[in-house]
């Protein structure tokens, strides 16, 4: 029923999609988690930073991809532009959850860590981060699931991925093509959600 060439392309596009999301999540996490840790110490910067990523979040994704095309070095056509946009979107949930996770550590626990003679670093690594880990990971999970969906739009700026089928299906009013893009993307999102939820639960068991 499904032609062999289509199946072949499906595999390639799924791999591309996976790559787009994977790289974006790694980059976003390596920015957002350390930044979130710093912001948990600096209440002044915190509100500004969260406000900025909040505003980024409100830009419609298709528009953000469009805005990035004329930007020199970072922008243009292709997957690197898409990755930058996806990273920007993923920052908010990751940053927000990192800050909240750390700030929500019980004051009595934090105070007794200090009173026992832990340095700021010891307290961060041994007490605050382990206790915040499930919340931080929940942020990563939310970001990943959303990004798998948003990444389909990246096909509009030539980044590839499962969005290619969706855009082609829209242009040719071909529902089989539409579904060939949408269903694998949905399955990928569900798998990521379940997988990360499992890791989250493993972490909260201490």
């Amino acid at each position, binding site marked *: 029923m499904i032609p062999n060439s289509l199946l072949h392309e499906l595999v390639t596009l799924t791999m591309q999609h996976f790559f787009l999301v994977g790289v974006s999540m790694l980059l976003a996490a390596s920015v957002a988690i350390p930044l979130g840790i710093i912001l948990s110490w600096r209440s002044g910067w915190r509100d500004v930073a969260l406000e900025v990523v909040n505003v980024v979040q409100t830009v419609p994704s298709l528009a953000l991809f469009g805005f990035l095309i004329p930007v020199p070095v970072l922008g243009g056509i292709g997957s690197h532009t898409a990755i930058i946009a996806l990273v920007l979107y993923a920052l908010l949930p990751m940053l927000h959850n990192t800050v909240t996770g750390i700030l929500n550590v*019980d004051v*009595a*626990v934090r*105070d*007794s*860590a*200090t*009173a*026992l*003679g*832990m*340095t700021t670093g*010891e307290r961060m690594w041994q*007490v605050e981060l*382990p*206790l915040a880990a499930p919340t931080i990971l929940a942020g990563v999970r939310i970001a990943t699931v959303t990004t798998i969906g948003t990444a389909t739009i990246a096909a509009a700026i030539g980044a590839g991925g499962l969005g290619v089928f969706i855009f082609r299906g829209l242009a040719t009013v071909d529902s089989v093509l539409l579904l060939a893009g949408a269903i694998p993307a949905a399955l990928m999102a569900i798998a990521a959600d379940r997988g990360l939820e499992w890791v989250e639960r493993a972490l909260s068991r*201490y």
Partner: protein
Amino acid sequence: MTGPSSKVSGSQTSGAYATMSLVSFRDVSIDFGQRSILRHFSLDVEVGETLVLLGRSGSGKTTALKTVNAMLFPTTGMVLVEGRATTAWDHIQLRRRIGYVIHDSGLFPHYTVAQNVAVVPRLKQWPAADIEARVANLLQKVGMPVEEFGARYPDELSYGQRQRVGVARALAADPPLLLFDEPFGSLDPVTRLELQRQFIELRQELRKTSIFVTHDVREALFLGTRIAVLLKGSIEFVGPRREFLQASTPEARAFLSCLEPLEYDTEQSLA
């Protein structure tokens, strides 16, 4: 310029050498914005005694306690520990020499009982075998044998058991000084008495110096070798237990009146 400043440092040095109190509050005042929490608070804590800071909520007793382990610093005045101002101590080193027990234990929820007790020895990088022996010994002392409780997590313990572990954790690195901030305040009366008795046993065995904050006059009399009554950030009365019972200052009397049986109409309650 040099004249007055050398005079000041001269008087501080002579003061530090004159008394070898373990802890010495020198005219300590603390303001949080407009509110003054401690006012010209002066007190010496001698080696081996259990000094109780007795006062109502908001009297400044917890604030005073927190200046000892450099959790808070005086706005004016100074706190000396072993003759050295808390501002001159390395805060981390100072805190590792002072055990600290608070009312809701502050145990690390992601550490087992044994790991919680081991925190300070581990920070001090004791050999693993020494830590293990120390943890087992202390948990035994507080009535929580390591075989039974060592692998449990704090949320699997009762409130009283958590406080016992909190005491063991404070004692772990054998600090010369212990601070207690209403550690038994939220316990039921029967468990509280058990833990108070255990406190006295441990004190006789280990001979530590303690500063103990409470609002419970019975607890103050039971545990304190000396009692200081705090009122609005100042010391209203300070003296040994026996003198406290004869105290004539209003706040001390107010606390002592809590010891008298409640007056109620016997006839009516029988009817």
